[in-house]
């Protein structure tokens, strides 16, 4: 930052404190999950009783939970892969071609972000029952693809915008056809974005509850399983342990994806 403008951007101590308090407000509530998962009592209340790992132990012995976990992983992998493929196609089309009605097209694709989850959920439920499709993990996966494509598009559009179009043109001028240009020039440059999109979509699908609630059949995904456990007070501590694990993994995956999404974009940026 330029030193000359510092009279505008003078340090503002109250604002700085507010920012720290705000971060605390964002994070401290979430930290109670891991905190109480080590508490040696089935009641979630202060004062805490003592350290224990028994909730983690009972979590690892929980067969239905592992089945639900594997279901969620499978759904997440399939829906993130398909959503990312659709996202790459869409993002390339939107950023590389001047197409009429581009704004409305992007608006339609981003719609699932603002439609209340319950509306999409019940609408898809009605569709499935009218078509006579039995609810299963496949129907959940379909719902999750719908939900993930906007996230994939948003991540990939910024990645596609971040590098210079003339590199693709150079490749075409040097005699590569469209496919090889895509594979040898475009894909390597957007690759961090693709990985970021895969990770982000996986997290979105893995944590998604509302659509899965309406579209899951007899096989639950992990959030559905947790929802079922919330009714039993004596199982809450195990849910806390599970929740703490999910939080740690989600934080790590999302941090990685956000970092990748921005990783060395300036290397290929048009300004350079």
């Amino acid at each position: 930052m330029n030193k000359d403008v510092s009279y505008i951007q003078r340090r503002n101590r109250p604002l700085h404190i507010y920012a720290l308090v705000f971060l605390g407000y964002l994070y401290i509530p979430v930290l109670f999950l891991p905190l109480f998962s080590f508490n040696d009592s089935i009641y979630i209340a202060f004062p805490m009783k003592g350290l224990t790992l028994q909730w983690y132990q009972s979590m690892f012995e929980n067969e239905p939970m592992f089945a639900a976990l594997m279901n969620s992983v499978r759904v997440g992998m399939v829906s993130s892969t398909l959503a990312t493929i659709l996202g790459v196609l869409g993002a390339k089309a939107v950023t590389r071609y001047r197409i009429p009605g581009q704004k409305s097209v992007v608006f339609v694709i981003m719609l699932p972000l603002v439609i209340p989850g319950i509306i999409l959920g019940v609408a898809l439920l009605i569709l499935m029952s009218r078509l006579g499709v039995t609810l299963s993990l496949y129907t959940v996966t379909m719902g999750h693809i719908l939900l993930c494509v906007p996230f994939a598009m948003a991540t990939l559009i910024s990645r596609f915008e971040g590098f210079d179009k003339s590199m693709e043109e150079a490749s075409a001028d040097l005699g590569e056809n469209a496919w090889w240009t895509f594979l040898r020039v475009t894909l390597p440059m957007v690759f961090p974005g693709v990985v970021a999109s895969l990770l982000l979509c996986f997290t979105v699908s893995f944590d998604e509850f509302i659509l899965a609630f309406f579209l899951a059949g007899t096989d639950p995904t992990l959030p559905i399983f947790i929802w079922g456990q919330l009714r039993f007070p004596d199982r809450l501590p195990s849910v806390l342990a599970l929740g703490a694990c999910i939080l740690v993994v989600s934080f790590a995956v999302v941090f990685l994806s956000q970092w990748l999404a921005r990783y060395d974009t300036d290397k290929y940026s048009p300004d350079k």
Partner: protein
Amino acid sequence: MTAETGGAPPVRRWRARLRAMFLRSEAIRGYTLLSPTLLVMAFSMGVPLAIMVVMSFWTQHGFEFDTTLSFTNYGDAVDRPIYEKLLLRSLWISGACTAATVLLSYPMAYYVAFHVHRRKMIWIILMTLPFWTSYLLRVFTWKIILGFNGVINSGLKGLGLIDQPLEFLLYSPSAVVITLTHAWAAFAILPIYVSLEKIDRSLLEAATDLGDGPVARFLRVTLPLSLPGVIAATVLIFVPTVGDYVTPALVGGPDGMMLANLIQAYFGKINNWPMGSALAITMMIVVGLISLIYFWLARKVTERTI
């Protein structure tokens, strides 16, 4: 034989012309590339919503649908006060949550846009990180915190500040507002941050040079220029939260139930899908109208200030 050889060249020419048109027209190539994504999205939203609209005009008889079209469900939705009450409560709770989220997030976005100069990215990631973790778990966290024997009550009791647990904390509309405000913060911070970051810094210098103090400068330059972000944030939070049913179900109690909980019950326990569809569509129309009016008002205001 002769007819075939005579017919082939025009076909080939026709094909060549199509191919040339395809390669030349950017729009056609763009749309071809876009078509899988667009078709998947349009169909998987459009078809279910269309079927839901049709179903909302049916009626439920026991376990069967009566597929003659009628306005019975919508008539019910207007006549029986419970629906109106729940809809108004949904709107009120989301409105409060939206206002609180935007007000709390604005200074934070402002801080990162104007006062963080190094490692901005880390701040942005830190602010949005909790948003990506399980929604269900975050709501559940607040149930733990606000509960009758929860973190706040047991903590305050342990400190000797209260004798009896504060009962109003959990299972009330305010619990829903608190939980939603926390859960949707990232949706407010990001758009506001982006619009603040876009502001040309020389405009601020100009305002200062022309004699504006910090407050006047903020009110006359920064705030109006950041309004698009505020407007986007408002809609991004208001629309989805009106339809939330997880939060009210976990922390709302009977007084915090929202319309979405009833819709969910119609598709579950009550098993009257047509009525549920009618309520869902009514909710969408009302929320859509409110958003449109809001956009219109917002445009009027921004036109006048800029």
